[in-house]
């Protein structure tokens, strides 16, 4: 199939950047979207031009490295997939495809389609953990039974891959789904109870510091999330935060 690509090119963080148009031909519909970009890059290199820089790594939808706002949607038109799992059969022959980086003040562009997601790192560092040291004497794993529904919920929340699609798609650039997933995971588990309140307070505080927008419950994040993280967790974070604030001294 043949396509016209409109790709965001930006030399570095300080460059203004703009959309460039590249025609591309002979793409197999079985190729993944990133493989299509590989073909484009090979073509650019052969033409003596600079290839398009984009983030990618595992190419099986789990590492959360790939991003891309494709034709107006985070990770493109398919649902519950990352860009690396998006296949060209989702596009029509002759279509014009816009490829842009995530857009958020808190995730600035580094180059072309690569953005800086270290804001997520700092949020996680503010409280996204259980304070337990490595020890050969931790209590036995089965010492604390956890009701299966709770463990399953924790797992659902924990599947977040930290790709940033929620921020990219949210009209407010809110990071609530990301933060909610982490806070919720630990809140379901007995091991997470000790630091539960402080964790919610600290992670939200850091999230606000990073300059993300406010959640207005549009639900776009849940729809575009490649892992289908539920809005239910955002409600849970609201509840956790409210509870922690009321209880704090």
């Amino acid at each position: 199939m043949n396509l016209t690509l409109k790709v965001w090119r930006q030399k570095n963080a300080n460059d203004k950047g703009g959309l460039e148009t590249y025609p591309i031909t002979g793409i197999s519909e079985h190729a993944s979207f990133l493989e299509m970009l590989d073909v484009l890059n090979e073509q650019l290199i052969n033409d003596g031009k600079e290839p398009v820089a984009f983030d990618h790594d595992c190419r099986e939808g789990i590492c959360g490295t790939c991003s891309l706002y494709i034709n107006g949607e985070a990770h493109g038109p398919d649902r519950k997939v990352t860009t690396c799992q998006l296949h060209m059969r989702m596009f029509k022959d002759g279509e014009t495809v816009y490829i842009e980086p995530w857009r958020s003040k808190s995730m600035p562009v580094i180059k072309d389609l690569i953005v800086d997601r270290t804001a997520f790192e700092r949020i996680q560092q503010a409280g996204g953990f259980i304070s337990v040291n490595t020890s050969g004497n931790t209590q036995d794993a089965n010492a604390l039974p956890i009701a299966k529904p709770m463990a399953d919920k924790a797992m659902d929340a924990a599947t977040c891959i930290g790709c940033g699609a929620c921020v990219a798609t949210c009209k407010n650039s809110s990071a609530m789904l990301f933060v909610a997933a982490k806070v919720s995971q630990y809140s379901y588990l007995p091991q997470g109870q000790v630091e539960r309140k402080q964790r919610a307070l600290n992670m939200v505080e850091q999230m606000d510091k990073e300059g993300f927008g406010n959640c207005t419950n549009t639900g776009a994040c849940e729809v575009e999330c490649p892992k289908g993280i539920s809005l239910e967790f955002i409600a849970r974070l609201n509840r956790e935060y409210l509870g922690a604030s009321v209880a704090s001294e």
Partner: protein
Amino acid sequence: MSTLDSKIPEGPIKDKWTKHKNDINLVNPANKRHIDIIVVGTGLAGGAAAASLAEMGYKVKSFAYQDSPRRAHSIAAQGGINAAKNYQNDGDSIYRLFYDTVKGGDYRSREANVYRLAEVSGNIIDQCVAQGVPFAREYGGLLDNRSFGGVLVSRTFYAKGQTGQQLLLGAYSAMCRQIGKGKITMYNRHEMMDVVLVDGKARGIIARNMITGEIEKHSAHAVVIASGGYGNVFFLSTNAMGSNASAAWKIHKKGAYFANPCYTQIHPTCIPRSGDFQSKLTLMSESLRNDGRIWVPKNMDDVMAIREGKKSPTELTEDERDYYLERRYPAFGNLVPRDVASRAAKERCDAGYGVNATGEAVYLDFKAAINRYGKQKAHLLGVENPNDAKIIELGEAVIEEKYGNLFQMYEKIIDENPYKTPMMIYPAVHYTMGGIWCDYNLMTTIPGCYAAGEANFSDHGANRLGASALMQGLADGYFVLPYTIGDYLADDISTGAIPTDSPEFDAAAKEVTERLEKLINIKGTKSVDYFHKKLGEVMWNNVGMARNAKGLTEAMDEIKQIREDFWKDVRIPGGMNELNPELEKATRVADFLELGELFAKDALAREESCGGHFREESVELDGEQKGEAKRNDKDFAYVAAWEYKGDPRDAVMHKEELEFKDIELKQRSYK
């Protein structure tokens, strides 16, 4: 002449680790804060080590080429993690896990290391649960287990099909806690370019800031390499695009021996290649083989008709199908170990029976399982005389419950409904058992330089059991390195900070810069991927699932030729002092082009078939096992550790003889 001292502690195997921990030197907590440790890689081994070392009080500098430690490729492991907990009361024990691992590794691993691995396996599960890893549970609230990889007990812990992700996020969260406290300094988007030796000891690394291109000097009292395996030497593998062997290869060139590079695991259940644009291969959990039956058509006419789309595989009757694993291995059938299943698929496809356009695919069929489960379910629900449609409906629901996410993944990639038409699978490079040689303390032949996780060689021998990679990475990172590294660092408490303005650092930085300049100034005509693909092709054809002396010799020459062409004709657009993915790829491929040759050399030297290494010259000639792999314990029960001598083909082999005191050596049989 051997310079290898594996430093295995004396005493009975079950006491070695405890005794060793009691005997080794410790570093006083007050002194730890004056000691720097560099950890390269943030996967299960590197992440766990960085977090644990920081918790102990060391100053840790952690390096990842990704934009976050959480993206290391350990995240992609699906199946699970083994631990000898015996929660299922099925007779599991540390000894049994030890035995299974040594046997599974085809008796080419180091007994003492494997025993230690089995010994700490239980602690890993305790540690992960304490960190909030949401393992699967039963309704009673206790941890669930499944059986994995053809062993006789259920000892695999799992978190849906995302066990690697959850374990890595556990280690990542522990790291985050230490980064927040300032105990770990995290260097994201940094690539290690070389190790720096001062007075023969590893004292730091040269790293490239991948955003600015700046060449940075980082010093430490010890360097841990936990940068994963080298499967991407094949270009197509289940590894991440960025997975590379450069850190391991750089220390090899500075004096660390590289052990058993030819031991590669080829995983049988991957999604086949669909065209030349293919950038990587996707693995599907091997649990699929519990219910899927593997076959190709018996008749060439059918093969051709299927390839041309004139016939659907569902039209073939049972008589027209060749369930070749069930035919060749009646006892184990579709559940033979990974290497056996992979070779059998290759054998059929080489004979021309591959079922897709590339000729490299076999069927994995769930029809029988759907029927069986459907009937069971109907019986369970009390449906009287269910019709076929009802049985299929019920059966598909059961299959969906078990493998839903894998089926969905398959459908997304191939665009065929695997509930209705059989899946297509083909083997792909998945894991490398070989790696940097290290002693019992995980120290390489460079003093102060350690290797952990897939980057080292020690625990899986010639073949790795399912669900053991995660176990080994975390064992090394959480429970081995934090203890053993102290033994070395105890001598460094009064060394003080290592200066980076020494001639050694300057020379290493200069060398790195010059190499990058050289690469970028070649300004040839072909892309990095062009060379990488060529290398991959040679590796796959000659050093892949079946190897012979002629092919391996040719491969060594061909790889050398590709390497020379690469250094003459590669084109790297862009500059050095900016984010430049092509330059990053080029540095990695340059190393693969050297490693590949050593790989072939090692495979050539090992004139036996063992585990993932299959030499066509070494097969059983008659009897029930005719044509199957033949191991040669008399001549090859050793670790081949290669010393770098300037050119991969000039590498010198050092042997570490393997002693099996606690396990009797047996030939594997799956008939």
